[in-house]
């Protein structure tokens, strides 16, 4: 006889809501790439409005996770899932916030004179977008290999970040009159890098769900920096 039918349905329902939230976050990223490449202020406004949907998903899912913890006291794989869900929605919400942050800078850049856009942005956006998509897939499929690939790709984004920062620094020296524009690009650079970090955070929880082992991937990076 099957037991805990309602509980299982509730878990499945929460899981499908997180998938829906993930779809909305991916849509926000697609719109951000579009707004960035065309300096499309209309699109930028839509992204900021779209953020409300994602915030709503976050609070809804968070509430349901808290309720299931209180009512069902999940343990073992159930607990690993719920704990990871709560971390995941927080990272997804931050990624969406970063889309809105970037939109704000897109509007400022669009309002000023045209400047040279650092070329590595295209590749950096693409890698970050793939990371978000892959991390959501790895999360729901328990695919630790894909999760590990996401974490590795964070280093690619970090390298792009450094390349863009150097390019912006050189452009500011060449065109000091456009410093404000380049500082806005620098902020976008940082936001994209943070979005990749959030994807890697989510990926690090996949190992926890599948194997019960916490993998704090960002610890290594800070250690490396502190030793260099």
């Amino acid at each position, binding site marked *: 006889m*099957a037991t805990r039918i309602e509980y299982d349905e509730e878990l499945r329902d929460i899981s499908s809501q997180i998938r829906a939230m993930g779809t909305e976050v991916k849509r926000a990223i697609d719109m951000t790439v579009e707004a960035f490449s065309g300096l499309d202020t209309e699109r930028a406004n839509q992204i900021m409005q779209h953020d409300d949907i994602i915030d709503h998903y976050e609070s809804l899912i968070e509430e349901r996770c808290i309720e299931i913890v209180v009512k069902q006291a999940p*343990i073992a794989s159930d607990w690993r899932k719920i704990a990871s869900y709560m971390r995941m929605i927080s990272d997804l919400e931050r990624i969406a916030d970063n889309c809105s942050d970037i939109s704000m800078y897109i509007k400022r850049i669009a309002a000023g004179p045209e400047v040279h856009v650092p070329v590595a942005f295209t590749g950096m956006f693409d890698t970050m977008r793939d990371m978000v998509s892959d991390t959501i897939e790895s999360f729901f499929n328990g695919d630790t290999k894909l999760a590990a690939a996401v974490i590795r790709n964070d280093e690619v984004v970090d390298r792009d970040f450094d390349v863009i920062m150097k390019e912006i620094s050189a452009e500011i020296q060449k065109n000091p009159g456009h410093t404000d524009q380049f500082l806005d690009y620098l902020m976008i650079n940082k936001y994209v890098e943070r979005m990749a970090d959030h994807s890697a955070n989510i990926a690090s929880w996949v190992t926890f769900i599948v194997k019960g082992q916490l993998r704090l991937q960002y610890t290594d990076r800070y250690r490396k920096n502190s030793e260099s």
Partner: protein
Amino acid sequence: MATIIQSENLNLWYGDHQALKDINLSIEEHQITALIGPSGCGKSTFMKTLNRMNDLVKSCRIEGKVTLNGVDIYKDMDANILRKRVGMVFQKANPFPMSIYDNVAYGPRIHGIRSHAKLDEIVERSLQQAALWDECKDRLKTSALGMSGGQQQRLCIARALAVEPEVLLMDESTSALDPISTAKIEDLCLELKKKYTIVMVTHNMQQANRISDVTAFFLLGELIEAGETKQIFLNPTNKKTEEYITGRFG
């Protein structure tokens, strides 16, 4: 950490029914070991083999070995001596129909202690250890039957501690108690494990998770999985353990 009790290839039959199958389990001293599993899985039967309570069951037959500090308790130990060293507290509090004082002094008297001063000292120490002294020091001569359910159960713990056992067996000892009395006994167990070793049978998964160091899962007379409680409740190795503790056992 040292092993205090060891069961080796332990098999037990009640008539034709085999209730325990090849149980190999080490109980470490100064730890709380929780035995979990569905009704009829053998966990209480296993616990009763640790102080030979099954000797009282006529149709019971045992093969294999249980040792207490390396000594075979079925071959080389007197049952009375064993039960002094391995005390037991049951599901339902069972105070004797006598005073609080006499309940605690009962065991030491049986073991030959007659000195009033010595008995006073044992009664106070045991009630202190059972976190009951402050509640009953002014009414030691009143009937134990007038105590609340939680107090009666702690009195039974005090009675078990009075003969200074090494191991305390607790068979669903909080299952009939309210949450506050349960919490008091759980706190007590955490305190007692500094001096004693505790083995508890419980159907309360949260309780096993909260206070035990090691959890052993029994099913149909077999020991399915035993390990560090944190690991069992976060990431059990065996699928059957996972199904049982998450309530999906059908």
